[in-house]
């Protein structure tokens, strides 16, 4: 960002500081504690887990010759710390304010993130708390916003049933993300009719009212854990309705987030008058075969730069 003078830079920095502090106050009031994330990730681990496109990572070599990555995603950094020091039965609620680094347009770009995570709790109450908190944050700044909720774990499960080649799978995922029904039909036409093919032919119809979508999905042979996740999300939507805020939420099964680690629902928050994503979040499971560890997590992050751009100097 360019500033014409130090006074302008100071004014902007303090404006941003006040906005961020105001949001953090809301997190603290709900009992969330501040945690600093590890700025480095293991390159090999990211490649194995296929969490993110390696071309987008900012790599560096440590004195031992090992390739490290400057944090590309705060949640992953937190997960690494949590994994090492986790003990059975622990439940922690944290918030963070940190930076992530990515390669974009052949340059290193820095993104400032502010967010919350809750580890060690599988219950739907926590999901509801996180969805409500995301709603609170957006509602602080505008009346006209939307939280899009998806369940990419169902999409990935159905994708596995198609037995596609790696590149076909990528094309299909991209086509779903782009709502490109023409390209989807082109891929499916070459395949024999089965449950998966029927699912993807209708992928853009599974949106809107989650109760109706859930009924539609009953004809597919989904495993118990996915049905449980869907029921839990349905319960959350009913609660959001009781709170009178459900109109700001929209369920769309064709919404697939950039990171594929979400084990149940995931969501994005947008303002009507801003061309970008302000909030990103969802539920995931931290697995570690070495330590025989399974830790559930749920949370969201706020794109600070986008939020500030949207506000354009407006006070809360």
């Amino acid at each position, binding site marked *: 960002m360019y500033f014409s003078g130090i006074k302008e830079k100071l004014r902007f920095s303090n404006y941003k500081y006040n906005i961020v502090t105001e949001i953090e106050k809301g997190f603290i009031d709900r009992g969330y504690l501040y945690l600093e994330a590890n700025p480095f990730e293991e390159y090999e681990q990211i490649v194995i887990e296929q969490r993110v496109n390696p071309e987008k990572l900012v790599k560096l070599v440590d004195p031992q010759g090992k390739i490290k990555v400057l944090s590309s995603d705060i949640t992953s950094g937190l997960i690494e710390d949590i994994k090492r020091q986790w003990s059975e039965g622990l439940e922690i609620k944290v918030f963070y304010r940190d930076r992530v680094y990515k390669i974009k347009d052949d340059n290193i770009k820095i993104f400032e993130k502010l967010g919350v995570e809750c580890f060690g709790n599988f219950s739907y109450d926590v999901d509801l708390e996180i969805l409500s908190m995301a709603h609170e944050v957006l509602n602080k700044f505008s009346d006209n916003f939307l939280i899009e909720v998806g369940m990419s774990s169902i999409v990935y499960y159905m994708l596995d049933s198609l037995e596609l080649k790696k590149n076909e799978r990528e094309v299909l995922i991209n086509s779903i993300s*782009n*709502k490109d029904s*023409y390209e989807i039909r082109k891929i499916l036409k070459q395949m024999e009719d089965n449950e998966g093919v029927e699912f993807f032919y209708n992928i853009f119809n599974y949106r809107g009212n989650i109760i109706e979508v859930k009924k539609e999905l009953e004809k597919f042979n989904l495993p118990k854990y996915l049905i449980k996740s869907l029921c839990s999300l349905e319960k959350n939507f009913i609660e959001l309705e009781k709170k009178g805020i459900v109109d700001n939420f929209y369920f769309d099964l064709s919404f697939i987030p950039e990171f594929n680690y979400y084990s149940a629902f995931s969501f994005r928050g947008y303002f009507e008058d*801003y*061309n970008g994503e302000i909030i990103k979040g969802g539920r995931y499971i931290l697995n570690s075969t070495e330590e025989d560890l399974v830790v559930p997590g749920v949370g969201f992050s706020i794109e600070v730069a986008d939020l500030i751009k949207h506000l354009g100097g407006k006070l809360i």
Partner: protein
Amino acid sequence: MTLSIAIPKGRLGAQVIKVLNSVNLYKDIVDNSSRKLVFFKNDENIVFNMVKNADVTTYVEEKVFDIGFTGMDMVMENKPNVYILDRLNIGVCKLSIAALSNNKDFKDKRLIRVATSYPTISKDYFKDKGIDINIMNLNGSVELAPVLGLSDVIVDIVETGNTLRENGLEVVEDMYEISCALIANKISYKFKRKEIDEFINNFKSGGAYEG
């Protein structure tokens, strides 16, 4: 909520307007013979905007317009972060590789010189095939490049093939089928889904969909 729509100027736009005129709701709103660039349908809060075909993807991606009609070649070249809601059966053509009829030896070259207005598509296509190329980026009259010795081949849109033939060129390989696409800004589509779906359904009744 106002719905803003980008229509490309030129041949493709003329075909889009023809379909619009065949739908009662949108009949005689956009006047292709006028020099005006903005047309309003006040009763439904729709604004039609005439822009250059090459700029439609930028306007829609940047949320200046909610949806837009443009050639699939522009979508493939500019790779905008937009939804591609559907393809229409207008503006149908092919993106092809063409060379001088008397020059078939270019395939043996280690580095093929390609003249095109589609550098991204060309780079991706030849990379997938493992062929090294040198791109000559041109903005028009691409057919001249092999004739004047600037390139070995061209990558360009081919409709009838008449322009190629008249310049002594012929198609060596068809790369992609191209037609008009209807694209939408990702945020606009989330907030104006009802309005956009309604417009698409009405437009569909004009019979321009590939299905």
